[in-house]
């Protein structure tokens, strides 16, 4: 028995392993066996039993989708080469591109929708290569990049169009430090109060005079409606800086001074704006869910949330969520923001990006031609506007293409007539320069103690300025 117990030595193991590996390698190198597949036809007889359905009476809400036809004119000039755009999926700019490419068929449109676009764009600009030709930039980002001289100067291109845009949108593309315009105004981001008149009527508020409604009246009404289990706006329990920015805009205030050198949220208008927001909070009429989260849309669909403050571009999201009669399809309307003492404007801005061309772009001529087409012609703006944003180009805002637009959410109501009116309600005193993002972030973080009454509005706003100053000073555009 002992003789049979043969131990495998290390050398023996290595030898065996080596032979095994060599055989495997040889096997891997041997010619591939060609498989011949014979195709055999098989006749299959199928008997399909069809059961006749019982007749059912189904009430179906038919969505009325309004299709717009935008006529594309012949090319004005011969452009060639590529045009690379970075933006999110299903972007309005991609719709503009369809018209642009028809005009300039020799231009190749490339739109990859990369994830983490902001970081990639910054990295590409830092490296000086791999940049897109067009980027959809938020106001404060464009201001930061413009301050660092990373974006193409569009002053000469934009000046002939100066009167075609609201001054607020032009301000957002203007860099005080360099005296240059670095972006082409895109979405106007004008805002209003979305609401369901049918629900308000059901709750005993069918005759609200929205044109003259004050914040005090709105808060009283919201408190009464909340008692009945319905909410007139969304106010997340951990704060909502957008409401403060809306109120500040309405009062003719600004969070950061025009030259971007000073935080101004603790001035008289800032204090008044936060007082309005606190009144909204105290009314209890705000639904405490995260903004645009699943519970938010659920509340909107089942009629618990019967209104909210939102930008014009929110229409696309409303259209995606409001599909049934219970959700009020076709019944929604928009009103100007409430008024009150000191209020100068009945609207506000939230979001609202612009088109920029980085200096490292390789197809500048194409990019500028695209900007002029997309947001400097009724045709291009119409294509962008059909997505849901409101291009700021005023001739488009006055055109029937814009004014006669319909949406399933608003039924037969020409909702854009309202937005055209609201455009005139935008402030000329509200700025979002570099550093604004840091201030907005601190307001979001630190507004709850004020709302809960742990700090007075004055103390709270002073504290916000103190806390925001280090971040602001490190992100502002120093003159």
């Amino acid at each position, binding site marked *: 028995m002992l003789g049979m117990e043969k131990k495998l030595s290390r050398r023996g193991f290595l030898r065996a392993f080596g032979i095994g590996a060599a055989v495997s390698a040889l096997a891997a190198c041997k010619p591939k066996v060609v498989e011949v597949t014979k195709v055999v036809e098989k006749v299959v007889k199928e008997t399909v039993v069809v059961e006749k359905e019982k007749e059912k009476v189904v009430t179906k809400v038919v969505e009325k989708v309004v299709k717009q036809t935008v006529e594309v004119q012949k090319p004005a000039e011969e452009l060639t080469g590529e045009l690379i755009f970075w933006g999110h999926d299903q972007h309005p700019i991609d719709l503009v591109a369809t018209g642009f490419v028809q005009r300039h068929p020799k231009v190749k449109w490339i739109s990859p929708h990369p994830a983490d676009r902001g970081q990639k764009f*910054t990295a590409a600009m830092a490296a000086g290569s791999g940049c897109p030709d067009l980027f959809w930039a938020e106001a404060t980002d464009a201001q930061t990049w413009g301050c*660092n001289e990373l974006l193409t100067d569009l002053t000469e291109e934009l000046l002939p169009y100066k009167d075609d845009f609201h001054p607020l949108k032009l301000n957002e593309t203007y860099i005080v430090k360099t005296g240059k315009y670095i972006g082409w105004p895109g979405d106007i981001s004008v805002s209003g109060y979305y609401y369901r008149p049918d629900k308000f009527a059901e709750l005993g508020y069918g005759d609200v005079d929205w044109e003259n409604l004050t914040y005090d009246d709105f808060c009283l009404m919201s408190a009464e409606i909340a008692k009945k289990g319905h909410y007139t706006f969304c106010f*997340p*329990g*951990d704060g909502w800086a957008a409401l403060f920015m809306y109120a500040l805009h309405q009062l003719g205030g600004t969070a950061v001074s025009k030259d971007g050198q000073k935080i101004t949220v603790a001035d008289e208008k800032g204090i008044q704006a936060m007082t309005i927001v606190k009144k909204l909070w105290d009314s209890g009429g705000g639904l*405490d869910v995260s903004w645009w989260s699943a519970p938010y849309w*659920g509340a909107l669909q089942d009629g618990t949330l019967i209104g909210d403050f939102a930008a014009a571009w929110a229409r696309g999201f409303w259209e995606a969520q409001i599909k049934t009669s219970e959700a009020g399809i076709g019944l929604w309307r928009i009103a100007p923001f409430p008024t009150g003492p000191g209020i100068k404007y009945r609207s506000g801005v939230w979001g609202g990006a612009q088109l920029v061309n980085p200096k490292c772009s390789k197809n500048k001529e194409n990019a500028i031609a695209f900007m002029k087409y997309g947001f400097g012609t009724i045709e291009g703006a119409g294509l962008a506007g059909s997505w849901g944003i409101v291009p700021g180009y005023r001739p488009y805002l006055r055109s029937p293409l814009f004014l006669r637009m319909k949406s399933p959410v608003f039924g037969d109501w020409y909702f854009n007539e309202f937005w055209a009116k609201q455009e005139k309600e935008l402030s000329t005193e509200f700025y979002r320069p570099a550093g604004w993002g840091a201030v907005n972030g601190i307001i979001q973080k630190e507004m*709850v103690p004020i709302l809960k009454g742990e700090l007075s509005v004055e103390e709270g706003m002073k504290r916000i300025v103190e*806390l925001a100053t280090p*971040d602001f000073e490190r992100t502002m555009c120093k003159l």
Partner: protein
Amino acid sequence: MSEALRRAHPIVRPPKPLWKQVAEHWIDYLFISPFFISFAVFALYPLAWAFQLSFSQWSGYGPMKYVGLENYRVMLKDPYIKQTLVNTLEFAYILLPTGIFLAISLAVILNIQDLWGRGIFRTIYFLPYVTNSVIVAIVFTQLFDDSLGWVNQALAAIGLPTVKWLRGSPWAAKTVVILLTHWGGVGYNILLFLGGLQSIEPEIYEAAMIDGANSWQIFWRITLPLLRPIIFFLTIIATIGLLNMFNQPYMLTRGGPRGATETLMLRLYDIGITQQRYGDASAFGFLIGALVITISLIQIRLQRRWMG
């Protein structure tokens, strides 16, 4: 030189210079070089570059501006540094003892030889550790959602008041972050303790039982002292991990409500990634590193004393 003298003073050859040693063993060095090359490229160089960056002001583009110790000064005066430090230490010193206690208790139970379904339980406890933390956080968000969460639905079903877990109360948000961290990490700790428990010789237990020791005495006098090296190792590793805590609060609360769950790493992310203040973020990173090293060194000294 006489033989006696040679024995008294053996000849000591001077060590060979490094280049000679390398030349002699170049094949050996060649084999270990991939690690050192990748370490130098992906760890050492970025670390050195970040250190240089911590003395500069830079937003990711344009030339770097040398500012000396200014970034460190700004970061030490940051209005959120105190709150984030307190939050981080709070998490670390709640999670550390409770985590070790939980892991030891479960490991002892799972080490019982005739426990039914021992293997299944071990797998179940280890599963969260290998599950993607993002998925785990999504599940927790669903569980603790203020309106639609299962926990609140259950509380409402039995007539108890619901809690705004993630966006309302600071203590509730902290509790959820602690639960998630325990849930994700306890499996790994159990595994380590099980390894330790199985390395204890059964003869020691037998001797103790013969001497009349009861189960509690055996655990307290034999098991726990013999697990000291593992407790020591885990305390150091877990402290480092917890002081660098980011995933759980980022995915559950983004640091809210009112900064109650904002850790040092979340603040670092805000400064570096959101605000693109790379110089400040580098300085802050090195300050956090210094803190972690200091706390770890203190722990090592204290534990060495404890272990005798």
